[in-house]
């Protein structure tokens, strides 16, 4: 699986990077999130799911 952050929805709450720092990076200037390119490692899939579940703006989705 891959994860994607919708830049139109993200408002920089930063919970995703708090939960899964290896999967999400925050922009230095505005703190908005973007997901890593490529497949989510199998051992981080649960973290990815928790980040999706925790996003207040519901900005994160899974790309199969």
């Amino acid at each position, binding site marked *: 699986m891959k994860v994607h952050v919708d830049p139109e929805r993200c*408002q*920089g*709450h*930063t*919970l995703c*990077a*708090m*939960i899964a720092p290896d999967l999400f990076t*925050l*922009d*230095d*200037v*505005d*703190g908005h999130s973007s997901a890593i390119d490529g497949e989510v490692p199998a051992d981080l899939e649960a973290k990815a799911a*928790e980040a999706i*579940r*925790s*996003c*207040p*703006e*519901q900005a994160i989705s899974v790309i199969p």
Partner: protein
Amino acid sequence: MSTEPVTDDERKQNRYHFDRHTPEYREQFTEVTAEMLDKCPVAWSDTYGGHWVAAGHSEVFELARSADYLSNDHDPANERRGYKGISIPSPDVGFRGGFLEMDPPEQRYYRQALNPYLSPAAVARWTPLVDEIVRASLNEKIETGQIDFVDDLANIVPAVLTLGMLGVPLKNWDIYVEPIHASVYTPPNSPDMPRLQASRLAMREDMMGQLADIRANPRPGLIHALATAEINGTMPPDFELLGIIALLIGGGFDTTTALTAHALEWLSEHPDQRERLSAERDTLLNPATEEFLRYFTPAPGDGRTISADCELAGQQFKEGERIWLSWAMSNRDPAVFPNPNEVDLARTGNRHHSFGLGLHRCIGSNVARMVFKRMVTAVLDRMPDYVCDPAGAEHYQTIGIIQGMKHLPATFTPGPRIGDGLEETIALMQVLVDEQRLADPVTVRKDAADLK
């Protein structure tokens, strides 16, 4: 978005007498919230000239993110549509409360000017300085075995940091703390009012002086960013900038104070959870912080004005109607939060609304989290057996504006001072701020404060 014509009575059939400014609302918050969530997640209340109240999580989510239909604008001079901003009732003041009472695109220009000072990367640079102010604040009380966590810690650290980020001398913190803190909890008819008015005036004078001084002798910080910002191609007038500075100070001080005091009080009442948080802080501090934010919701909500007839969250609204978005009540929605009225330090899926939602998300959220965590962990380390005195703990009588505390006295086993006291430390930190230009935006300075 098509709406069938219905009468106002039909639109407003979900009714609830909602008055968040009464002590009863604070005392019965859990019951009122459960009732509204169950029966009327969006309701019409006749209070304060009549307004909508949104309590349900999914309803607040949809409404707060519908900026095309909900306006934050405050227009006291009636130059646009005379909207009343984010407070219900609207205070009778002739100015707007910074960019929180603006709509895009104007609001966006301000946010873009200030983001590089308040992003996670920008805020992290200040952590070593915050640790010093926390250490020194605790030093003042550590040998006595007695502390008031509000007066002696949680009021001081957010204030000193906020002033540092603004570019205001750190030692001026006590000019600002009292008027900001007391303004929230002092009723208009209080005998304390004349003294409070005088302290407000002193604060406003200092603020205006700082703006003028920073214009004349530029030094880095949020005020410098504002003084040099082009907003939609023009330089904003001073009264607008003072509104922004007041918003940053009001947002930066008492909210974090309120969160910290409530969390420390709860941890004193639950010593087993306190030990667990301390022992497992590497994994537990982040979710526990979000849980305290959810449960105590220091800023309990925001008002908006409906800017066009619409149907949202299953409710028809008319242009010009006022609506209160309750972050605090939506944070207790059992549809999203199992056992919503319990604190679960390890809660997952914590999509709380305590920093708001959508394009007005609290611009200081990264500051609040960092300062809160540094204060709480320092207390856990240096006063691990503290016990709050319930008889001395004083909560705000009402939670309409901030769910905060006036006092939170505690006792603990005395310990040794570490390093300097508060006054000396603030003086040393001022040198650091100036020499290292800590208040520059993260686009200019990337490294954390170096204590040497």
